[in-house]
Structures are given as C-alpha cells and as structure tokens.
C-alpha cells in the first residue's frame, strides 16, 4: 500500500534553530531518506519552500481567485512529504515516527487511493 506522509511543523520554531542544529537535522533527513530507499519503502519525497511562498488558487463561478498564502492559517504548516510503499499502517507509522520532524511537529499519514 502507498501512504503519503505529510510533514507539518511550526515554521517559526524551526526558524529559531541555530545553523549548527539546522545542519544536524539536514543530516538526519539524508540518513533517513537513504535508509528508506535502501529498504525499498521510498517512492518520492520533497521539502517544500516556506509557507511565505505559498499561493492558493480557487475557481468559483468560473472565476479564478488567487490569494497569497496557504489555504488556511494553521499552527503547524506543511513543510514537505514522503510517498512511501508499506505493507500496512503499522509499517507506515513506524516510518513516519522516524522522520525528524515527528519529534517537534506532526506527520499526517494518508493512504493513497488505488484506482483499478
């Protein structure tokens, strides 16, 4: 089964990290990504640019409305994702728990729809 792991963190808290701590976290991400690639769980994954670069597009009554910012203001913001292959939710949970952001933020685990 495929699961999308959505990484939510409070950006402001992250911004307060020192460069040394920030580098350390990057190393943890590299190590984590390599590990799930080796274990054949990794399908895709990206970090996203900060929420300040977000734009929201809605089409209502045929009109396209573009606004600055995320779709909603939230305490934690979407910062990245991993798409993984896992045999069940428990395996997906255990992968999610090893994402560095899980310690300070929240990882939403969403099963992907299989269209046949």
């Amino acid at each position: 089964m495929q699961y999308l792991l959505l990484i939510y963190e409070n950006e402001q808290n992250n911004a307060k990290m020192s460069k040394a701590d920030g580098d350390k976290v990057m190393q943890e991400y590299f190590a984590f990504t390599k590990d799930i690639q080796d274990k054949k769980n990794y399908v895709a994954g990206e970090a996203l640019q900060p929420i300040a670069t977000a734009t929201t597009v809605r089409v209502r009554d045929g009109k396209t409305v573009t606004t600055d910012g995320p779709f909603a203001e939230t305490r934690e913001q979407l910062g990245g994702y991993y798409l993984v292959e896992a045999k069940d939710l428990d395996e997906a949970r255990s992968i999610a728990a090893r994402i560095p952001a899980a310690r300070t933020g929240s990882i939403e685990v969403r099963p992907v729809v299989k269209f046949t």
Partner: protein
Amino acid sequence: MSIAQEINRVFRDERQHALATLIRVVGDWDVAEEALQEAFEAAVVQWPEAGVPDQPRAWLIRTARNKAVDRVRRQAWLEEKRAGLLAEAEPGDEPAYDPERPDDTAENEGCDDDIDDRLRLLFTCCHPALAPEAQIALTLRTLCGLSTEEIARAFLTPAATMAQRLVRAKAKIRGAGIPYRVPPREEWNERLQAVLAIVYLVFTEGYAATSGDALVRRELTAEAIRLARLLAQLLPGVEVLGLLALLLLTEARRDARATASGDVILLEDQDQTKWDRAQIDEGLVLVDRALRSGPPGPYVLQAAIAAVHAHAPRSDGTDWRQIVALYDRLYAIVPTPVVALNRAVAVAMCDGPAAALPLLDELVASRELREYHLLPAARADLLRRLGQTREAAAAYREALALVGNEPERRFLARRLAALEG
C-alpha cells in the same frame, strides 16, 4: 438439553473465536460476520438431523469460509460483467467444498503460529489509529457480540450514531490498512495498555450509576470480566492479572452497594453477606499471584487496595494504614489528582480528618478537580466529622452543584439535610 438449546450454547461459546478466525481468513470484517451468520443458519437446519459436530467451531469456520468465498466470487463475477469483461471461468467451476471434510485446516489457514485469533481481534479493535470511542464500540460489537442498539443504549448515544461509528471504524481499518495481528513484542507495553484501558472503560460504563438501562449495564461488566479472563488466559502478565482481580473484587460488591430503591450504600455500611464470595476469593488469589510476579503497576495496586477492603471482617477492621501505603505507591506511578483525592480519604480514616483536610485543600487550590463533585463531597465529610457544621454544609452544597447522577445527589442531599435539621 434439547438440540435447540445445545445449538444455542455452541453459538454462544464459539461465536467470538469463530468470528475472530474468519476475519483473518476472509480478510473482510463485514463479509466474515455475514458469512458466520449464514453458517449459523445452516447449522440450525443441518445439526438437528446430522447431530452437533465433534468440532463445532471448525465446522462453523469451514462453512462460513465457503459461503464467504461464494459471495466474493459472485461479487467478482458481477464486477467483471459490469466492466464488460467476460469471466474466464464460469462460477461453480471449482470443486464444491465439503464442510465435513475431516482434514480441513480452515482454522490454521495461512497461519504458522499458535496465536489465538481472539487476541488479534482484540488488539486490532484497540488499535491507536482508531478513536477511543470507536475502539470500545468495535470491541463490544465484534468481540463481545453486543448488538449496535445495546451498545448505543449503554453509552446513551443514538443508535444511528453508534451504527455510523462502527461503519467508519471498519472503513478506517480497511482504508488505512490497519493490520489484523497481535503487535510485535516491542510494542506490547503501549498496545496492551490500550487494550486494558478499553476493557476497564467497558467495566466502568457498566458499573457506573450514570449509564443506560440496568440490564445492559450488567452485561457490560460481565463482558469486561470475560475479556479480562481471555487476556489472563492468553497473555498472562502482571497488569492483566491485576485488571482481572480489580474487576472481580469490584463486581463482587455490586449487590451490596445500593438499596432496593437505588440509594447509595457506602463501603463501610455495606452488608458483606451480599458480596459475591466466589469472585472475592478468585480476586484475592489473583492479587496475590500478581504481587508475587513482578513490580506492580496501577491495576495491581488498585486491585490490592480492593483486596484490603475485601479482607476486612467488618468495615472497622479495614487496614487503612496498608491502604494509604498502597496509595503512596499508586501515586508514585500515576500522580493524578483523583489518586491524590482517594489517598487523602484513606489518610483521614487512618490519621483522622484533621490530618487529611490540608491535602484536600491543596487539591482545591490546584483547581484540577474543580468539576469533580467528589472533592467537595470528601471535604464536606471531613468537616462534618470535625464538627465544622457550617463549612461542611457549604461544601455539600458545592458538591450538589456538581454531582451528575441521581443516587449520589440524593445521598449528598440527605447528608446536607442531616446537618441542617
């Protein structure tokens, strides 16, 4: 026993285990349940003629599995027709299954271990990805076999809401891929805690005076005890034994704790001849075993406290000092205000109300229990015993403003009236 009675007995005894195995074998909760129902119906028709099989559970599982296979095959065939594809094989090509085939290993199909399927079912019902109210509903429905209406009544919820809750829970299991298994050992600590908590919640729902109708309440406590027994049989650990002991020792007092008109009878005033001796004896043995098996957790300690109460020949023979000591140990593991409150009440029995009052005042100051009627009720009782009538009356009024159930409200009102009378 007539054949009808015997068939009913078999269904009652084997339903839980058969369903648990079928869910594993069939891989779909709803199909498993429906197929088992069809197997029961087949048994009602066939067994009076052919006799009850030697291994009725195996018969039920095989028959149900075949019906599930037929159903799934029929569905697949229909799906293919709808998609415009011709089915490669006509339905009915495969050889018919013979439910009486003696070497059928339906129970062990796809299984290379001896894990009781009921454990798989229990752990899955209590999976952390399900909301707690969904965990309870699913456990009561699938493991305990309560109807949706009975569960709804027990939790004072509309039946339609409860039905939806169950549908969503099963959809979550299916959609999110919650595995049907006993979790690996590394996760047992956390997962077993959840299972024990659910069993305990089922029990307290049944035991509390606030829940639905009386018949369902008794069924809930009985089911909780049955689940605890199943756990003790399949996964005997210190806390599992502790929980079973606690439930038995508590349930033993059921008939003594209220008058015929439903009024509260305090522990110290209870007619101990109405206590269920068999449940107490069993509970005491279990507490003993648990205490000797390893460091006690919260359930064992609570059971030990209940055991001290059960040992008292009359209520003023209670060893309150030991109870305080047990609460000290409980508070060390579970430092909650409710535990602190219960401990303070025991301290009052041990060292007198004046010693305990400061402890209660501390709890009042912390404001954590400001919605909990038992805190002012306890204060009121201590103040009453100290002869501080005016303050006691004020505290009883505070408690009355917060109390949620009728029997306790009447009790507090009587105490207040006695002070003012």
